[in-house]
């Protein structure tokens, strides 16, 4: 497949490298001549200087025959504009935008970008699982971002400790799909499953129920 990537920073370059290794045809566009030169010296003519929001530059990069278009600059607005041009002007079947501002994830999808990767959300997910507090770890958005899969660790002394799942009232539409014990053993949840301190609960929930869910599972008596 022919893949065009806008932005030859760490993400764009890393992506290009991995795609080239799997035999894909890759082309990068970046407005920084140093980056373009570095890429050309190690990979040959797979990059050129240009602006991802300029139709002429996109045409020269062969976007018209691209099967996949990825906008991975550090500027959300540029990533949106270039994906929209790829879609509207060149009919690229699949466009992906990287965003820094998590708010832009839903907006960009509503505006026609096929897939949006939020760097902040990804970082928060990883960080949340390493800090000692008990935040909601958002594992992934589901069903067009109306639902999400989250992990919540039950703090010692929480009200739900030693209670059966059937006794706990979760927000409407939420369902526990897995309970992971403190030593890593997994348990398929049943109504009579008893929650213990430091158990990690994986739940699919409507996005608007996540906060209530977290409160329910971490509240102290």
């Amino acid at each position, binding site marked *: 497949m022919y893949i065009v990537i806008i932005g030859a920073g760490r993400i764009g370059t890393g992506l290009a490298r991995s795609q080239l290794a799997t035999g894909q045809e890759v082309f990068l566009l970046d407005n920084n001549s140093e980056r373009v030169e570095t890429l050309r010296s190690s990979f040959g003519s797979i990059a050129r200087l240009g602006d991802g929001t300029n139709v*002429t530059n996109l045409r020269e990069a062969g976007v018209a025959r691209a099967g996949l278009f990825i906008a991975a600059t550090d500027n959300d607005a540029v990533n949106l*504009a270039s994906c929209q041009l790829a879609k509207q002007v060149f009919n690229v079947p699949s466009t992906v935008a990287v965003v820094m*501002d998590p708010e832009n994830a839903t907006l960009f999808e509503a505006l026609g970008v096929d897939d949006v990767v939020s760097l902040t959300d990804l970082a928060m997910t990883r960080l949340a699982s390493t800090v000692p507090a008990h935040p909601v770890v958002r594992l992934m958005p589901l069903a067009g971002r109306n639902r999400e899969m989250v992990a919540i660790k039950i703090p010692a002394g929480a009200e739900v400790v030693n209670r059966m799942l059937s006794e706990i009232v979760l927000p409407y539409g939420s369902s526990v799909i897995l309970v992971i014990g403190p030593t890593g053993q997994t348990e398929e949840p049943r109504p009579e499953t008893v929650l213990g301190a430091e158990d990690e609960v994986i739940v699919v929930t409507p996005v608007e129920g996540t906060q209530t869910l977290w409160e329910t599972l971490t509240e102290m008596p």
Partner: protein
Amino acid sequence: MGSGRIGARVASSLSTDGHDVSIIEPSRTQVMNLPRTLVDDGSIRLVAGDGSGSEAMLEAGIEDADVFLALSGDDALNGLAAQKAKTVYRTRRVVCRVKDEGLRELYTSLGITVTSPTALVADVILQTVPDIP
């Protein structure tokens, strides 16, 4: 959004005409383009912040706005802010300043009123050139 020379001038005129004007300025250094008197007496509300960020847009009162003008010098930022005003906050009239011809066509096709200073200036200049027989 944007208080460069164009934004500042538009804001001053609208404010002088009696409209309630808020201006979001993404770069702190541009603010000096606005007439101090209008900012100081509260005629123009100045909000410093990310030009397309919800926080700044809400603080500027986007939810009650009749018109949103994206007039910064950055085409892509204007396009993002304009589309956000239109789709998220349902602002009735949205105008976006764009230099690049391809982006101008794109945003027009997306239903945004686009104004291109470059094209306007070219038109004005052409009008001053006498017709060639």
